[in-house]
């Protein structure tokens, strides 16, 4: 099975990189008016005079706060509750520290490389250490101060890197988490952000990705899958009980994620306006539909609808609507969510068994697969005759093909970078803890603490 996956992975990588030449040849179809945050406003720059709008700025500051809440404690608790109690603190630690680390790196060089300049894959170092950024300057958006844009985008970088935690949890060395995160952030997240949002290759190609289906979810999902592959299974996987130790906390985490996601999606409108309103409504509906379709699928196949299923369904819907939020209509969002719920249910059951890898908390099954479904279906439901926000000259077939190309590209780029990053971490600090340390629990062996003293 592993060999088959390796060959498949190489094939996808080859296909993904070949889409590079295709994308370069394709005449850049004019990006639709409501395209993702960065590109369009930057091109219209010459006409619009940048001026701080307090409504937009207030909303963007709020959105930033919401996304931070998604990571700490939302994601931390969501994952933490799924872990065994002996590893609870290690999971919380991974998320909390990654958030801190990536925030700093974002300010030092991430923002500059992602949004400064217009290379195909990387920006430039002009704004490293935030040089030249003042209270008076503007980034790609013309109605909010550049600092606000930097903060908002920084939270995306942090949560994306933290998402990968869910795949390698309960057996990875803490130092490996740090090494991998720095490398992957630098060589997978930053360029992907540039390629899709910062005037890079896929932006020019006309790919529709409102809030980060590719940049965030497929990116992290693939990195997680590769991590599960490289690290190997947890000791006792498939034989010993590894049930979640605190599903109430997982539900709290999922709820914080859902609420915070309004900042993630509606905030990606970059303004307090009708597009944000559309993204907001879609984020309610797609998620709700996915919750219902997931638990319906569970009830029909296994006989019982579960809380974990409802929480997972919500996340699947949220992931799928992320690329679509500002481009599809509300009814399209409902169908999108319902499909994502069912596909991701299969992703964490049937597909997971087929792949035979230990993705601890199903980062690929939910984020990776949900992102792929959402990205491709965005091309479908953006059609005006399906309630979408695109113009009447919208060509669904062509758009879906552009979406598929962006998906393949992301899979290839993220997969290759993740693999190399894990290998470097392995060669420098080693990836896994020892068997004794894993059995004892990472809380004690890696951090010298117990989550729940008796």
């Amino acid at each position, binding site marked *: 099975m592993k060999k088959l996956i390796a060959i498949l992975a190489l094939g996808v990588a080859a296909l993904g990189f070949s889409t590079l030449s295709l994308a370069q040849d394709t005449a850049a179809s004019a990006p639709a008016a409501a395209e993702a945050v960065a590109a369009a406003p930057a091109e219209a720059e010459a006409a619009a005079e940048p001026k701080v709008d307090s409504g937009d700025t207030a909303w963007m500051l709020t959105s930033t706060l919401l996304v931070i809440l998604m990571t700490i404690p939302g994601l931390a608790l969501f994952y933490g509750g799924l872990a065994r109690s002996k590893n609870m603190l290690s999971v919380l630690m991974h998320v909390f520290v990654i958030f801190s680390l990536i925030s700093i790196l974002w300010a030092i060089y991430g923002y500059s490389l992602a949004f400064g300049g217009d290379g195909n894959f990387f920006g430039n170092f002009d704004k490293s250490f935030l040089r030249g950024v003042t209270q008076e300057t503007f980034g790609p958006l013309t109605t909010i101060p550049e600092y606000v844009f930097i903060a908002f985008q920084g939270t995306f970088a942090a949560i994306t890197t933290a998402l990968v935690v869910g795949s390698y949890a309960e057996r990875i060395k803490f130092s490996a988490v740090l090494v991998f995160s720095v490398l992957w952030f630098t060589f997978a997240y930053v360029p992907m952000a540039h390629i899709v949002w910062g005037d890079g290759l896929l932006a020019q190609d006309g790919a529709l990705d409102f809030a980060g289906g590719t940049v965030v979810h497929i990116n992290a999902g693939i990195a997680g899958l590769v991590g599960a592959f490289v690290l190997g299974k947890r000791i006792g996987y498939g034989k010993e*009980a*590894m*049930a979640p130790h605190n599903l109430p906390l997982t539900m709290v985490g999922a709820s914080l994620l859902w609420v915070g996601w309004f900042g993630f999606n509606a905030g990606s409108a970059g303004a307090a306006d009708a597009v944000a309103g559309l993204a907001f409504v879609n984020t309610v509906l797609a998620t709700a539909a996915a919750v219902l379709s997931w638990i319906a699928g569970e009830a029909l196949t*296994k006989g*019982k609808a*579960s809380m*974990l*299923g409802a929480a997972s369904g919500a996340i699947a819907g949220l992931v799928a609507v992320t690329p679509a939020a500002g481009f599809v209509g509300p009814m399209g969002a409902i169908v999108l969510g319902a499909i994502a719920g069912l596909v991701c249910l299969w992703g*964490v059951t049937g597909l997971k068994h087929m792949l035979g890898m230990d993705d601890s908390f199903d980062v690929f099954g939910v984020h990776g697969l949900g992102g792929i479904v959402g990205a491709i279906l965005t091309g479908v439901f953006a059609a005006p005759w399906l309630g979408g926000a695109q113009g009447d000259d919208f060509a669904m077939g062509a758009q879906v093909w552009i979406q598929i190309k962006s998906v393949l590209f992301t899979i290839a780029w993220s997969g290759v970078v993740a693999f190399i990053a894990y290998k470097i971490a392995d060669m420098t600090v080693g990836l896994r803890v020892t068997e004794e340390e894993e059995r004892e629990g990472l809380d004690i062996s890696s951090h010298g603490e117990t989550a729940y003293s008796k």
Partner: protein
Amino acid sequence: MKMVTAIVKPFKLDEVREALSAIGVQGVTVTEVKGFGRQKGHTELYRGAEYVVDFLPKVKIEAAVDDALVERVIEAIETAARTGKIGDGKIFVSTLEQVLRIRTGETGKDAL
């Protein structure tokens, strides 16, 4: 002196405790345990990972009693704890070598 150990269903604890007080048993020790006899367990499902759980939660009640009281103690626990459904539990009686009250140093029947 005998040690009477009873494994009962958790929701029966209060009833058993009251029944023991009514016949003069002054103190008991209660532990939460898990086990199974002929009662089947259940299956838990977490995102496609299935766990068969054989063990069921039970409560263990231990009381040190005088020989003269043993029969009435067994009868009291039996009546209070019985539901008639599978999994009601068991009562074990073992001989107690020695008993001592720590505060006063009393031993034997005076310590019960």
